[in-house]
């Protein structure tokens, strides 16, 4: 996704600057080659070997679409896909919403703004593994949140998302939001600070309410900020792995499995490279399916038209 936005900025410069700064371009050749060999080459290699019956070592024993048939026949994969869909859509919407709301609150020139900013951004400094463990403890019914509320006297209070197969993914979502919202808030805040004060004055003169100004004027002006936030959130969703490993280990049962975990476990624990490659190819496909129309609308269509 980042490559897409990079190429767009170079696209606008391309007509007259192709041979300007040729030294810099020469210097970036090694990076370009690395990207081509490691990313493109590695991706192609993975796709090719997903059509083989490779076990621990890659072998060119062609099996056609067998690995894919098995993949889509596996309950665990289907559960993983569903979980990612739930986590992804909730995380996308809620992170953007909460991040913007927090940023808007901070932008109302409140007191101790920098203290709040630090508090909200702090979770982002923690790794996913730490976040996962912390929330595993907080959500543990025996000595976490549920126990604390019960000790206050609300005996029937029940909040035990991690041990119920139907709600466990929301328990992970809570931890993911806790960690990710702060960064999005900071990006949004930077965007809000970039809005000219005169806009607010003009809105005031016209008698437009604060909320309406945000929704109708400010948010449309912050489009590039939203795009950046979107890219960051989306890449975090696809990568979702360490949070799950630390928080639930995929359990209870298979209820919080995610595709990245399937790939890793089938490649290394089950020593079935072909199956892992097939799963990672499917992950790539889903990204490409979402990315291409979006990139076309965002960068292709608009700039040309």
């Amino acid at each position, binding site marked *: 996704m980042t490559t897409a936005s990079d190429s767009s900025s170079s696209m606008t410069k391309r007509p007259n600057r192709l041979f300007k700064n040729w030294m810099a371009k020469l210097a970036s050749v090694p990076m370009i080659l690395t990207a081509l060999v490691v990313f493109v080459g590695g991706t192609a290699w993975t796709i090719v070997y997903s059509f083989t019956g490779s*076990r*621990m*070592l890659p072998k060119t024993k062609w099996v056609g679409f067998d690995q894919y048939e098995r993949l889509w026949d*596996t*309950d*665990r994969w289907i559960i993983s896909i569903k979980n990612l869909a739930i986590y992804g859509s909730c995380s996308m919407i809620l992170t953007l919403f909460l991040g913007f709301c927090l940023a808007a609150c901070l932008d109302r020139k409140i007191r101790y703004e920098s203290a709040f900013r630090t508090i909200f951004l702090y979770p982002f400094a923690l790794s996913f593994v730490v976040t996962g463990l912390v929330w595993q403890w907080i959500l543990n*019914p*025996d000595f976490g949140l549920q126990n604390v509320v019960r000790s206050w006297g609300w005996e029937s209070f029940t909040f*035990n998302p991690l*041990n119920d*197969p139907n709600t466990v993914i929301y328990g992970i979502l809570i931890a993911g939001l806790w960690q990710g919202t702060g960064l999005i808030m900071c990006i949004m805040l930077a965007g809000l600070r970039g809005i000219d004060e005169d806009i607010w004055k003009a809105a005031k003169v016209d008698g437009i309410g604060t909320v309406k100004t945000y929704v109708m004027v400010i948010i449309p002006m912050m489009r590039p900020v939203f795009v950046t936030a979107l890219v960051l959130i989306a890449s975090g969703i696809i990568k979702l792995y360490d949070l799950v490993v630390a928080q*639930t*280990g*995929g*359990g*209870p*049962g*298979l*209820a919080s499995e995610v595709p990245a975990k399937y790939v890793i*476990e*089938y490649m*290394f*624990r*089950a*020593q*079935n490279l072909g*199956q892992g490659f097939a799963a990672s190819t499917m992950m790539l496909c889903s990204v490409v399916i979402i990315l291409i129309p979006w990139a076309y609308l965002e960068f292709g269509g608009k700039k040309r038209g």
Partner: protein
Amino acid sequence: MTDHLKSLLVGGALICGSSAHAVELEVTHWWTSGGEAAAVAKFADAWNATGNTWVDGAIAGSGGTARPIIISRILGGDPMAATQLNHGRQAEELIEAGLLLDLTDVAEAGGWADIVNPSSLLDSCTLDGKIYCVPVNIHSAQWMWLSHAAYEKAGVPVPTDWNEFVASAAKLQEADILPLAMGQQGWQQNLAFGALTIAVAGTDAWRAVTVNKDADVAAGPEFKAVFEAAANARELARGSNVQDWNQATNMVITGSAGAQLMGDWAQGEFAVAEQVEGTDYSCLPGLGLNDVLDTGGDAFYFPVNDDPEITAAQKELAALLISPEVQVSFNLAKGSLPVRGDIDMSAANGCMQKGLDILADGGVLPSGDQSLSADTQTQIEDLMAQFWSGDMSAADAQESYADLIRKAD
């Protein structure tokens, strides 16, 4: 990661320092818990006493974490001198690719074929008539651990087999005790299922399915009974919200759960809690129904090395690991059973003695690791994870299980 980096550096140092006479061998393993580390130290001491140097390459995390690191180092051309793996089919492809040292001459010189008991341990080190690993211990999974405190509280005698346990479960529940502690991880649930299979269906049916991959038996009446027993056990374990196996063992230790199905390594936890076998807890090998144990365990493999001096040292180490004194001190520290039947293990505690008796009587089975590929094992673990923590019916689970056995290679 830093550990990995460190082991890379150590590997580098190994190459530089190999011209010296006393040979440094880097040994990787995943024995990092208290008792396990003490056991590894016995190996290291014995090896250092020969004038060589043991460079310890412990990899934190379980086998699932360590195995990929070990295998990728061997594949990546940065092999350690020796490494732990579970014997079985895990190293099959590495051997086929010619990456592991052939130990046949050491084995013949040491007469391993005569001393290793059960001989299936050596068979799983053997490929095409050549021996590639040295077995160091036996771990068996078919044990039930019972809390005396829990049964005292419930006012019923401690059961002596699985059926009595099931019958006593209602009393336990009345006393607000969870009958069966179960960590919510696929491998533990698979282990419990395996133990139930051997106890309920018997060894013949187990062998037909696991060793011969007979899907008809897996779909047949013996396994129907197993899946029904497992579905019953699932109900007895409802509300067991722990993840790790030692947390589940801890429930048995504290008496908040009646029993746990877990391998013989659980007794290390009882020992750490200073509990005494027979008064604080009981162990039932084969769940008290069928006195058989499987014989999985650990083995050491030696990646091929160009340096003849290191190769010679690797063979020396291989011979040392299986020598009588080292076997006794290592297995006593680890709480596992030795791989040779001709040594004195009288210092072992009650549960280990029970295991030794079963071994001496020949009540042994190969472990799942030895018969099923890692791929099939993982698929079965996934099925078990789904079965134990959801409400999949016994019939559905049996059908999926038979299907996996049919497709197993």
